[in-house]
């Protein structure tokens, strides 16, 4: 995935060589790519100097794909093949898609995730999102004049596991090495916090095109700690457009619309909404395909009236987040406004009234998330000196659980638990002689499984027949730093085991991604192989460098014999890298990884001891 320049074997890259990393805000309405150059985060514009890339993808019959402004230009004349706001469909089945009847798209109810029928074939939201990411990746590579080490991709904090997994899959499909999935409000807090040296409790109010997040963070020197997060993964500026659209249809007494007219009026609705952020009224004119003329004027008061319930919908999650954080409004020092939809005066007023203070608007609400993501990408790529970097402690937005008898959800990991985290719970059989158990993993806060999101189902087989209640099955949930879940189950007396990375019911199998990657390469098979070889070489070289510096730093934790063994494996991998054999490189890398497992664990322990030793020295000094 990473396309770093490879140095000659035995020669490590220059110590001060900066690794090229970008932050990508994959938004519902617009997407951006940013990077840190000379210590300053900047958004990378396109050749015309435009920072935003409209998140719109058009599929043509010849297989060509248009992304951004060129696709936007065809929204009205080619509505079925021009997909906007695809983020709303990420990790979603057809039954979850709201207002499907008010969109011009031809949905296909595919297993797992919905698909859209286009002139270019049936496309999943993951594939459509990947088209947007490919354009941003190319923009990054061009601006930075080289291959990218990796990217931080932002997701709404309130995205569930299926939506996160879909986003990561899209990035992989676009050929990006994902350094981290980062929550959008957290990214904004990094950008705001570093810029303003902010300390204290801050709320980030993030209303985007299709999602709403509220995060409460504690900012202190070098630490960004998310205390609670809440939101609505299906509430955003789009919904205001939709309200205006419905108002137009009613006010102009329009008959059922053709897709083209529907899209045209949605665009007009959005323009009117945007105009009303700075004006008392907006005129809406359109000529429909029937020749019928729409000519209406929407005033700010009417606009506020028809969208008031949407404003109220943002406040319930805000209250919930504050309650979860166990904080009073007075303790919140500032409210950072993020997302283009926070430009609406009624949103500004609602936030100001609720928090009893003027919201902070000194960062561009369209760019702040991408800038924060770029800063985090820069840190993760290893471009920050120790002491210059920061610690980010984020949480899981929704509780994770398992279905138990009676269709109830048993909570295993509660929402707002700091990640990475793991939790285990024991379950047992309820029938005599039962040899298997099936598990249903769900996410959400409701008691009934039917009201939660189904993430995965898996089975543990091979239990020896025992009396009901005698088996002891330990189910472990592990959530990683990206907020992604994997689940394993183990029967204690027999050791029967099952393990799943949670993606089967919503998302793509690894094989699907590989197939899509293959399909997307029109070139010969050799190109694919060359690409794979290059990627493995880069990864292997990185592993060699990392192992060398670990040995230099912490060799004292190992016996001479252990060092010799690791050096052996390093030499072996160094040799493998010079060959054109991808499989040999992979095998040698795996061997080195296995050989360094114990070393890695000892190094973590040593890190803990050093942290504590550093503390006692400080205490003595005090």
């Amino acid at each position: 995935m990473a396309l770093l320049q490879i140095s000659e074997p035995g020669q490590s890259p220059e110590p001060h060589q900066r690794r090229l990393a970008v932050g990508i805000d994959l938004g519902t309405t617009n997407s951006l790519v940013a990077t840190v150059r000379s210590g300053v985060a900047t958004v990378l514009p396109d050749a015309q100097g435009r920072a935003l890339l409209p998140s719109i993808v058009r599929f043509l019959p010849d297989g060509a794909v248009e992304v951004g402004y060129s696709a936007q230009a065809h929204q009205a004349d080619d509505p079925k093949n021009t997909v906007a706001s695809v983020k709303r469909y990420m990790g979603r089945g057809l039954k979850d898609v709201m207002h499907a009847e008010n969109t011009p798209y031809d949905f296909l109810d595919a297993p797992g995730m919905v698909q859209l029928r286009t002139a270019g074939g049936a496309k999943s939201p993951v594939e459509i999102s990947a088209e947007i990411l490919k354009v941003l990746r190319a923009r990054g590579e061009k601006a930075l004049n080289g291959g990218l080490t990796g990217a931080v991709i932002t997701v709404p904090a309130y995205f569930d596991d299926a939506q996160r997994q879909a986003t990561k899959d899209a990035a992989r499909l676009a050929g990006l090495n994902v350094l981290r999935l980062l929550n959008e409000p957290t990214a904004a807090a990094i950008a705001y916090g570093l810029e303003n040296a902010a300390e204290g409790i801050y709320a980030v109010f993030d209303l985007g095109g299709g999602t709403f997040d509220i995060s409460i963070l504690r900012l202190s020197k070098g630490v960004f700690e998310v205390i609670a997060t809440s939101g609505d993964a299906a509430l955003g500026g789009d919904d205001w457009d939709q309200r205006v659209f419905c108002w137009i249809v009613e006010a102009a007494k329009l008959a059922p619309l053709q897709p083209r007219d529907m899209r045209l009026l949605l665009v007009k609705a959005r323009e009117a909404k945007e105009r009303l952020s700075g004006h008392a009224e907006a005129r809406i004119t359109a000529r429909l395909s029937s020749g019928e003329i729409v000519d209406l004027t929407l005033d700010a008061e009417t606009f506020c009236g028809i969208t008031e319930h949407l404003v109220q919908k943002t406040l319930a999650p805000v209250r919930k987040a504050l309650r979860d954080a166990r904080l009073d409004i007075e303790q919140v020092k500032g409210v950072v406004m993020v997302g283009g939809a926070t430009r609406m005066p009624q949103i500004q007023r609602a936030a100001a009234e609720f928090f009893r203070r003027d919201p902070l608007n000194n960062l561009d609400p369209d760019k702040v998330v991408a800038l924060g993501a770029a800063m985090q990408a820069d840190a993760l790529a290893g471009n920050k000196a120790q002491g210059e970097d920061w610690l980010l402690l984020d949480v899981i937005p929704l509780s994770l659980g398992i279905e138990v008898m009676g269709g109830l959800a048993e909570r295993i990991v509660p929402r707002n638990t700091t990640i990475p985290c793991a939790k285990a719970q024991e379950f047992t059989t309820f029938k005599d002689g039962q040899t298997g158990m099936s598990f249903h993993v769900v996410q959400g806060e409701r008691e009934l499984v039917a009201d939660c999101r189904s993430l995965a189902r898996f089975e543990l087989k091979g239990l020896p027949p025992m009396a009901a209640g005698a088996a002891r099955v330990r189910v472990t949930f592990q959530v990683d730093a990206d907020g992604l879940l994997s689940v394993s189950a183990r029967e204690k007396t027999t050791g029967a085991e099952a393990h799943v990375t949670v993606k089967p019911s919503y998302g793509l199998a690894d094989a699907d991604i590989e197939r899509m990657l293959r399909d997307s390469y029109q070139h010969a098979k050799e190109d694919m192989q060359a690409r794979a070889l290059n990627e493995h070489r880069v990864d292997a070289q990185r592993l060699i460098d990392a192992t060398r510096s670990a040995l230099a730093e912490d060799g004292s934790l190992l016996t001479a014999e252990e060092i010799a063994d690791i050096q052996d494996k390093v030499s072996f991998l160094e040799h493998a890298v010079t060959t054109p054999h991808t499989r040999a490189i992979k095998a040698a890398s795996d061997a080195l990884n296995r050989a360094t497992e114990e070393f890695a664990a000892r190094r973590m322990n040593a890190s803990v001891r050093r942290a504590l030793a550093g503390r006692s020295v400080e205490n003595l000094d005090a």
Partner: protein
Amino acid sequence: MSKTSAAAAKALTSSHFELFGLPPAFSLDLSSLDAAYRDIQSRVHPDRHARAGDAERRASMQMTTRVNEAYRTLRSPVRRARYLLELQGVDVGFETDTAMPRDFLVQQMELREQLEEAKDGAALDALNRSLNSQKRDLERQIQEQIDSKRDFDHAKTLVRKLMFLDRLGEELDAAYAALEG
């Protein structure tokens, strides 16, 4: 996943208190805990090892997971108390043995009735204040029994009471949520 390494196993079996270099007591200096937690996390967190090999990234995730769990346990009075008793071999065993003093159960029933009858924010606030003061009182008693008198059986009953109050607290949260919509 491969088998846990010897070093990892050792770290996983050290107590939460040892992990943070703190004395095993109910009475705890929270600012020391916070500082130790942050110092450790800033070294072991996956963000610090994002470009490392598989082995190191896995070790980082395991340690961070462990540190987060330890911090979560020690930060909460009721979890800290349960954990201290477990270290002493005393199982609070909430599900297995629910015999509680009668007067306490009666009091709990009364509190729940009040909760059901509470129709507005002011009534919930009053109940919340009363609950919090009862909790603080119990925490004082737990501290005395665990740290000074070392009467772990007595502490066990107190911890169970505190768990009852915590559950009531959750129901109170749900009531606030229902009220606010």
